[in-house]
């Protein structure tokens, strides 16, 4: 700002004034506010005065004066500024912008000053009305005296066009001519004329309104025109004529002379030449035709569609139009000949193909008469499509999936290839009254033991279905579970009814084995007393968790040798593979739910003082000292030697009903009451490897085949068994293949219970099932 102000001394004063006013306004900020309010009210008064006293001439004059002052002041200033700008612009162009902004600023401020400070005093005039007496304007010496009333023209209210033909525009108050002021354009012209640019004419282009400048060429042309020459340079007005046609007109172009004789006679020369060729052909010097060249078939011939963008053209010999489309054939007729009508298979094939794949868009149809031809059926659709095309509506083209649905199915071997597996019911075991709750095939594969609601344990001949032996052990209670002791050295059957676990030796075996079995059972009686003593020795009078006793003579006669009484109902018996330990589960017991019994010592132990949930079933690992306990949701495996928890398996089922361990020991199947059958790979994850939901009701029992066949089965309340092929490979990288192979139906559903238990034959792919309908079935 500073240098620019220094340059323009003329503006310095006004600048100072504005600065002062700025200071004032800043100092009296509060006053300013008040003033603002007041000034507004005064302004409005002024306006109203104007409206009221419009008739008063004096006022009008004053106002006119005021108006003149205002109107003159601003344009003059502008014009001066313009001149100044132009002058300054020539000298200094860099300060232009800042000066302009200053100017606008200053003008606004001077206006404010005027409005703020009234430069008049109000007196009373001769009529007693208000009279504005303005202060005498005291022009500063070197001020721009633009306010001087030099411009007063006295011509009155006449159009200024009257003076157009004169150099003046009127007369001042002294009668002197007011000369026409120099206009901006004239000034510009003057300034432009100071150094005339090239091609300056001083004319105004009527088309653009800009000064008409002429280029050098145009000036040349003008010069030639002035000298009456051809305006175009190098134009030859009289070139030498070239005669394309003769100017001589022939009167008779054809000669009437008779044709010469030689025209009618065969030419000897030609005959000579022909004979020469003929002779050459005969002698074989010239071959009459070329043998067709062996063209390479591979050479691609490029064909062009010359009628690709054909426009209709008038008929002309050089224009070969595109061949016309064939006329409609018989098959387009409304009544085509019968050989054109499609057969049923053709119609079906046409229907089955997609519209875009069809060879023809229509099927020939026959109508007796033309009036029976229906309306074009695709009319609306085609109109709609056309509308969409016009609307540029993008449409999704349907992409057909060319996937064979069979390929999406997992590749499983056919069940026929996975034989043998049980397919039909071969034997029925009928005899139980009420439900059969549990069954088991003995380790030799000869007998079947079953126990049911009628409180009896029965032993059957497996193949014939003949009941060999029966003992009523339950009295009132149902037999919940029967299990054979593993091992071939003795034949011992364990059964649980109510709180009692019975160990039986069915009298179907030979005397030697029977004696061995009895000895095995009786061997622990000595230990039993020791065990109870040890328990009572620690001061507290502890009830033994189980009592091992003789069941009484009646049962002893039938072959029931030992009765173990625990506190609550036993639901599950699971034997250790060596046949010395077996574990029982009584889910309703709080602490003693899981008990491990030692046969040789008649000892019962409670391995878990506290269990996370209600135990459902237990299993010993087939080869390692692991013990699996299934609660309602999880299966925990414990190391019996280290006495620690090894793994928690979470099948994800809501209520586990049963589980079984693969004889290899690394896989597990779990059946649940929420209809799921889950396969676990113990090495892989605690989560199931495969979940199968094929049953419509709860799964009661699951069992692996333990005799070498890759089979497992489940039994469900919907009365069916399902047989699966589950092959476990020793290769760690390969997962087990599980194929459902057979659904075995036959058991009747009684009171929402179907098949209660299931067991496999120890050697053959045969399985047995215990049904709620009171039968056991052998499937082979």
């Amino acid at each position, binding site marked *: 700002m500073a240098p620019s102000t220094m340059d323009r001394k003329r503006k310095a004063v006004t600048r100072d004034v504005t600065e002062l006013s700025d200071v004032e306004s800043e100092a009296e900020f509060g006053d300013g506010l008040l003033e603002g309010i007041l000034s507004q009210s005064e302004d409005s008064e002024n306006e109203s005065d104007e409206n009221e006293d419009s008739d008063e001439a004096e006022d009008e004059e004053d106002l006119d004066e005021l108006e003149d002052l205002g109107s003159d002041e601003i344009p003059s200033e502008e014009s001066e500024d313009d001149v100044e700008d132009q002058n300054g612009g020539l000298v200094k162009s860099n300060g232009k912008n800042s000066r302009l902004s200053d100017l606008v600023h200053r003008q606004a401020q001077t206006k404010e000053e005027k409005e703020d400070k009234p430069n008049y005093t109000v007196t009373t005039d001769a009529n007693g009305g208000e009279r504005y007496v303005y202060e005498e304007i005291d022009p500063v010496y070197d001020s721009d005296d633009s306010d001087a009333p030099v411009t007063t023209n006295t011509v009155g209210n006449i159009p200024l066009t009257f003076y157009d033909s004169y150099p003046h525009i009127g007369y001042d108050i002294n009668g002197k001519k007011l000369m026409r002021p120099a206009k901006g354009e004239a000034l510009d012209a003057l300034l432009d004329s100071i150094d005339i640019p090239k091609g300056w004419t001083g004319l105004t282009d009527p088309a653009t309104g800009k000064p008409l400048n002429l280029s050098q060429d145009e000036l040349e042309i003008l010069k030639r025109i002035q000298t009456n020459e051809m305006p175009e340079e190098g134009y030859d007005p009289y070139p030498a004529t070239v005669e394309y046609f003769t100017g001589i007109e022939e009167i008779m172009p054809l000669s009437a002379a008779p044709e010469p004789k030689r025209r009618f006679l065969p030419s000897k020369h030609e005959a000579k030449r022909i004979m020469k060729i003929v002779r050459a052909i005969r002698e074989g010097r010239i071959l009459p035709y070329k043998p067709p060249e062996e063209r390479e078939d591979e050479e691609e011939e490029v064909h062009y569609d010359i009628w690709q963008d054909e426009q209709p053209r008038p008929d002309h010999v050089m224009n070969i139009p595109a061949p016309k489309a064939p006329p409609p054939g018989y098959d387009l007729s409304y009544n085509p000949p019968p050989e054109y009508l499609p057969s049923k298979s053709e119609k079906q094939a046409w229907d089955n193909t997609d519209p875009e794949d069809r060879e023809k868009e229509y099927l020939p149809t026959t109508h007796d008469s033309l009036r029976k031809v229906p309306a074009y059926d695709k009319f609306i659709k085609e109109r709609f499509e056309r509308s969409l095309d016009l609307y540029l509506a993008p449409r999704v083209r349907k992409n057909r999936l060319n996937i064979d649905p069979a390929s999406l199915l997992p590749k499983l071997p056919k069940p026929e290839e996975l034989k043998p597996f049980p397919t039909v019911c071969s034997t029925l075991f009928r005899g139980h009254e009420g439900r059969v709750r549990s069954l088991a095939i003995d380790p030799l594969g000869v007998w079947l033991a079953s126990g049911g609601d009628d409180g009896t344990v029965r032993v059957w001949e497996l*193949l014939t279905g003949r009941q060999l032996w029966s003992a009523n052990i339950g009295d009132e209670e149902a037999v919940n579970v029967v299990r054979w002791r593993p091992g071939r050295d003795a034949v011992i059957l364990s059964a649980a009814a109510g709180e009692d676990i019975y160990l039986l030796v069915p009298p179907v075996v030979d005397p*030697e084995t029977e004696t061995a079995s009895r000895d095995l059972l009786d061997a622990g009686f000595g230990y039993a007393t020791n065990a109870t003593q040890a328990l009572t020795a620690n001061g507290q009078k502890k009830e033994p968790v189980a009592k091992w006793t003789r069941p009484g003579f009646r049962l002893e*006669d039938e072959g029931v040798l030992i009765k173990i009484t625990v506190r609550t109902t036993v639901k599950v018996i699971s034997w250790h593979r060596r046949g010395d330990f077996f574990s029982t589960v009584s889910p309703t017991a709080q602490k003693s739910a899981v008990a491990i019994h030692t046969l040789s010592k008649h000892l019962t132990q409670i391995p878990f003082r506290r269990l996370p949930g209600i135990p459902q079933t237990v299993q010993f690992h087939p080869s390692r000292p692991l013990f699996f306990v299934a609660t309602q949701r999880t299966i925990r495996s414990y190391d019996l030697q280290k006495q620690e928890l090894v793994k928690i398996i979470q099948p994800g089922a809501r209520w586990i009903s049963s589980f079984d361990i693969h004889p290899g020991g690394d896989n597990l199947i779990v059946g649940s009451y929420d209809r799921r059958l889950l396969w676990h790979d113990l090495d892989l994850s605690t989560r199931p490897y495969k979940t199968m939901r094929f049953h419509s009701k709860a799964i009661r029992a699951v069992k692996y085949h333990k005799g070498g066949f890759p089979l497992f089965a489940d039994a469900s309340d919907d009365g069916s068994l399902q047989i699966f092929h589950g092959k476990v490979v020793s290769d760690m990288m390969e997962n087990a293949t599980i194929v459902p192979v057979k659904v075995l139906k036959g058991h009747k559903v009684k009171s929402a219970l179907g098949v209660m238990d299931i067991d496999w034959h120890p050697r053959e792919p045969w399985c047995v099932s215990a049904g709620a309908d009171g039968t056991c079935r052998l499937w082979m």
Partner: protein
Amino acid sequence: MADSGAQSSRYGPVQVHFITNSPDIELPEGKRQLLVPTNVRRYGLSQILNSESMLDTPAPIPFDFLINGTFLRTTLEEYLTTNGLSSETTLNLQYVRSLIPPLFEASFEHDDWVSCVDILSGSSRAGTWDGNEVAAGQERILSGSYDGLLRVWNKSGQTIATSTASSAGGHTVSIKSAKFISPTQIASSSLDRTIRVWKYNEAEDHFSGDLKPVLELYGHKGGIESIDVHGPSNRILSASTDGSIGLWTTLKNSAPAADSTFLTSGPTAKRRKLTTSTSTPQRGPLSMLSSHTAPVTAAIFNPLDSTVAYSASQDHTIRTFDLTTSTLVDTRTTSHPLLSLTALPGISTQLLAAGTSARHITLLDSRISAQSTQVMTLRGHTNKIVSICHDPKSNYGLVSGSHDGTCRVWDLRSSRTGTKDEGNGLVGEAVYVVERDSQKGGKRPVGGEGIKVFGVAWDKDVGIVSGGEDKMVQVNRGRGVTRPDNP
């Protein structure tokens, strides 16, 4: 119309040559060649043979016709087209007496399931050995039952003798197998692990008799499923669920003493034994052959050579033993547990038919190389086949009893090539199906419940005798002239 005309023109005559093996029905030399229309079936050919110009039989004999060893079951035309033969060839038609459908004759009621049957007649093995004479009309049927009793019946269904109860030296539990050794001697085996030899005496009027235990044979640790006897050498062969095969003798003096461990029966049995009067001599086995790994279900003597025994077991094997040295000679492994066994000596000395738990009969010939032991399978049963007996009249006939409640009669010449599912090879189909009379007309129950057949025997004089779960011994026999089966 034109089609039928063409058909009739195709039924042009074909030259056949009738041959037979039976001299009594042989045609005279000049009549053997004949032109017959090709649209005739077995019945038509049989009528032609029975006509006056040919055999001129007083009563028509139903014939079956064999071409190249298989039965003609279609028209000649169809045979020619399926075998790609022209009608100008001469067909060699071998005619045999047709197998008469075994019709129901009688049922003998029991108190309990019938586990086994055997027949004594003039043509049965026991009736022919050692010049034993059984008069016609004196045929006897022996049945063993699950109530532990043996019964001897005559053909009209009267019980001639019943074995003594366990208190008087009888079996304590179910009898599983019983056989006539001679018209006066019977052997039986039981789930009580013993074989008992009985003396059978008939009164003069042949309407009453008695069975007295002669010998108790101890040695098996499991129930004895099946026995076979050989009268001339007084040998008994037994198959037990303990996996062993026992060879015994019926002669009291030559039998070794029984092992005391088997005699001192278990604590429960001892209690019962207290009440019995054990006067029967107890003996042990001549030899015990324990090579099977699973229960043995059948053991038989080779019908031509009593020193050779075959056994079938649930361990899928058929083993051949040399009884003189008590050694295992041969083991043939099949793919299924075997439940019954019989020999077919008429075709080959070592052809065996074994019933499996997989519902079919496997025919094995141990002379054929070990790779292809299976000669033929007979399919049709729907349950375990637990009993097999060969046809006494024909070398190619068999009858089998199964837990599906039927006996099926097979002819090995009636065969076809099996499908891939059946394991290729030759597959035979049953000629006749003998239903249980107790279940006549009804739907066969699941698992053969109540109608299982446990034992079947076939005799020339008596017919097919079978016993089963319906507590009946049922006698079936072909009688008279049959109606055409394929008119």
